[in-house]
């Protein structure tokens, strides 16, 4: 196509940076820039605000749980086991008479430490790998892509079990295991974002300045794929929370008596048929609300970046 898009107009939205003329306007109306920063756009989205409120609530619980909690999450009251929710114990007590509300509040700590750190580890490794695959291409791309496919073919839980059995369950093990499992997934997303960027002339331009590959990958390309990485991070965070809860439920995660939602569900679901629903339902709701909070934030970020 040799006829350039000169004169191409975006008729719908005046003042958008449509054609060259439309863009002049953006300069003319410089003050409007502040209005449309991603932050402001996010804060205008009710889904983001709702998700952020939920997240902030649980982060506060994780940080100051022992202060907020009405009782010690470890204190056993053998005379008040399996108490239904009441004024003294809003969420009831468990089989050892421990206050469920306090356990739910303090239980946020483990999951909110492990899930974000694991996701961060996976994102960092995955980004580096994805940049290399997408930009350098060739043999590196071919080899790593096959490895990624191999890892993706293995069920997550089986891989996690193997590692945890080999290394012993600990916070570090969980972070490393989840981080490693996420790495190829994130690498794949970053790779495709890099491939889109590779079509653009600014990379040729950088090459003509004699820039090194590392500079091109991390200084030229990386800032342009950050939005994709950000979305991937939040999506993975949701999965990580779920993974930590699942592993704890199966006994491979945070170990009792440390309060933890997954572990508490595992410890108490046996008494569910006896009608002691509060011992299971409140940790389950905690997990659900945290995942929902993360997903709401993810959706809002995705929408803002897409617009």
């Amino acid at each position: 196509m040799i006829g350039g898009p000169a004169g191409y107009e975006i008729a719908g939205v005046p003042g958008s940076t449509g054609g060259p003329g439309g863009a002049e306007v953006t300069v003319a109306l410089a003050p409007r820039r502040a209005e449309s920063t991603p932050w402001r756009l996010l804060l205008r989205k009710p889904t983001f605000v709702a998700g952020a409120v939920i997240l902030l609530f649980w982060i506060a619980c994780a940080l100051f749980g022992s202060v907020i909690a009405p009782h010690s999450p470890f204190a056993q009251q053998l005379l008040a086991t399996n108490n239904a929710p009441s004024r003294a114990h809003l969420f009831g007590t468990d089989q050892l008479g421990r206050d469920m509300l306090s356990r739910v509040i303090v239980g946020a700590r483990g999951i909110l430490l492990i899930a974000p750190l694991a996701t961060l580890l996976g994102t960092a490794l995955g980004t580096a790998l994805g940049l290399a695959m997408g930009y350098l291409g060739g043999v590196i791309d071919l080899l790593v892509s096959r490895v990624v496919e191999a890892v993706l073919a293995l069920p997550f839980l089986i891989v996690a079990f193997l590692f945890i059995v080999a290394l012993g369950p600990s916070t570090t093990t969980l972070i490393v295991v989840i981080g490693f499992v996420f790495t190829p997934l994130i690498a794949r997303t970053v790779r495709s974002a890099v491939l889109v960027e590779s079509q653009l002339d600014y990379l040729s331009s950088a090459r003509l300045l004699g820039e090194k590959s590392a500079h091109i990958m991390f200084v030229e390309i990386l800032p342009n794929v950050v939005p994709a990485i950000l979305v991937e991070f939040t999506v993975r965070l949701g999965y990580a929370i779920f993974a930590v809860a699942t592993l704890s439920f199966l006994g491979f995660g945070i170990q009792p008596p440390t309060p933890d939602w997954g572990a508490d569900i595992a410890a108490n679901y046996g008494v569910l048929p006896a009608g002691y629903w509060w011992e299971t339902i409140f940790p389950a709701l905690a997990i659900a609300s945290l995942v929902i909070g993360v997903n709401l934030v993810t959706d809002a970020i995705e929408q803002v970046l897409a617009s």
Partner: protein
Amino acid sequence: MTAADTAAAPGGTGGTGLTLAVEHMDVTYRVRGQDRRVLRDVSFQIGRNESYGLVGESGSGKSTVALALTRYLPRNGWVSSGTISINGIDPLALGDAALRELRARTVSMVYQEPGRALNPSIKVGRQVAEVYEIAGLGRRSALESAENMLRKVQISDPGRVMERYPHQLSGGMAQRAVIAMALAAEPSLLILDEPTTALDATVEAEVLDLVAALREEFDTSVLFISHNLAVIAKMCDRVGVLYAGELIEEGPAREVFDQPRHPYTVGLLRCIPRRGQRKDHGRLDTIPGFLPAPGSVLNECIFAARCPIAEQQCRAAAPPAFAISATRSSRCYLHELTVDLPRNTPVDVQLPSRHDAAEPIVRVASLSKTFGSRGETVKALVGVDLVLERGETLGLVGESGSGKTTLARALLGLITPDEGSIVELEGQPLGADARRRPRDQLKALQIVFQNPDSALNRRHTVRRLISRPLSRLAGLSGAQLRERLADLVRSVRMEERHLTLRPSQLSGGLKQRVAIARAFGGGPRIVVCDEPTSALDVSVQAAILNLLVDLQAKEQVTYLFISHDLGLVRYLSDRIAVLYLGRVMEIGPAEAVFAGPHHPYTEALLSAVPSLDGQHATRIRLHGEIPSAADPPTGCVFHTRCPRRLTTGECESTEPPLLEVAPGHLMSCHIPIDQLQTLQNDGRVP
């Protein structure tokens, strides 16, 4: 003229004979809670079988007019005052069913991108037939009618084309299919919104001829929207010039372009190099300043801020439309004075002192590039020999797919040429891969890309973008770098305040200036300009061309200027090379190539260009599109489309060598030069 008058004439026949009447139309968009009036007081009429052109730069509201007429405005936009009447029907008053009926039978639209107008998952035949089915035909007769219609738009094998999906058609073919669909309903009004902007010049010429012929046949009125003044001049009886949402001048196309009566129209026309105008004739004139923000409320003439002759009264109140003659109007108090409007840009031009003895700076010999592997190979360049002389501008022309960009990228080391290719800089071989070239070679060769949006890293600031070549290539740092940066920013006519901005905050013209500053930062000896203005409006284009000429004089650089716009190439180039299917067809001094005798392909390219002065030197037309480079024709690669092909069969069997026909003028054609001369002087159309 009111809507009631036209309503008395059903079908647009009868008394008034108007197909479209727009009276005092305003269109308002609601953006972030604010109403912005983007069209103000627009009035025009299109008579039966008349062709009306709406011309304007991007952001002027051309497309908004088209959308308003058919009520396709987005949800936040509406016609806030005025009336529209199409064949006496007011589309604004119609209910859903009647509106659908109007769009189906009375008005058709053709857009810029044919690829987007067709449904990618339905065969072309079905899509055209659908129009007839809506009109009430049975399935079989609809398909028959569709085939007839496709034949009318000069699709040579309609039966086969109907069985294809849109992606299997070339751009020109797809646009014909869209035109077929638009005309299938035999509309009274056909709206064409930049219908040929995405097409090659040769294909554009064919599509324009087709539209003109069909207009006669179908007795249709046409509203032709384009940014290209020459296309409008060729296609339209009357023209309206739109600026910032106001129709500032209107009249018969020939008169408006010959004697414009509004300063904006005058300025616009001066931005375009006239036939035969060259850079040594002086700078192009420009229009300073920017378009006002859409919907801004001004109590003065909208053009006053950019007008060289604006007076007190222009700033006191917006001018009404003055009737200059029975058929012409202009929204300018001073429309009498536009004849000798003062220039905005001084004519004086410094030209680079060319060395008399042509001294080659770059030599390319038997340069080939083959893409692909596993049997499917595409020869993008085949044995190209050429020389760039120090300080000159070599223009590179050809249709898309002719190998222009491949040649540039091979020169820059962005793609590796085939074994045996020779690329030399001042006698020294150039590294095949830019990444392995020494700093001096990187410094020597730089490029200005076509699209600054793609060529500038959108996350970096202007300061960073321009500083980088200074530190990487020129090896500057600290105070020296800052000094050179300020110097460079001044020489591309930008300001200090732009340095902290990012590309998205700049206009198209400013972005391209940043790209130019980047290319010149390292102190290059050769700059490749790959369609540097094709993404820009004409008023911006003129400023960029002036800048390129000034920089060449100042920095003594050599340009390889790639463009599909022959007017620009002629304006800027000292020598011209014509490429077709990766081969040089003709190369020589610009004047010789343009004056002729020229290669039949060059002749066809020249014939395809619509000109503003109305001298349609319609000599020869190319039919069809450039053949696939994966399967090039035998013999002379151009013979399949060559209107002057010899009957001896020589063209089909042997490839003509590139021979010197005059000093410095080389051509690859079997027809002897004097015979070409006679043929072309006769103006005989074979």
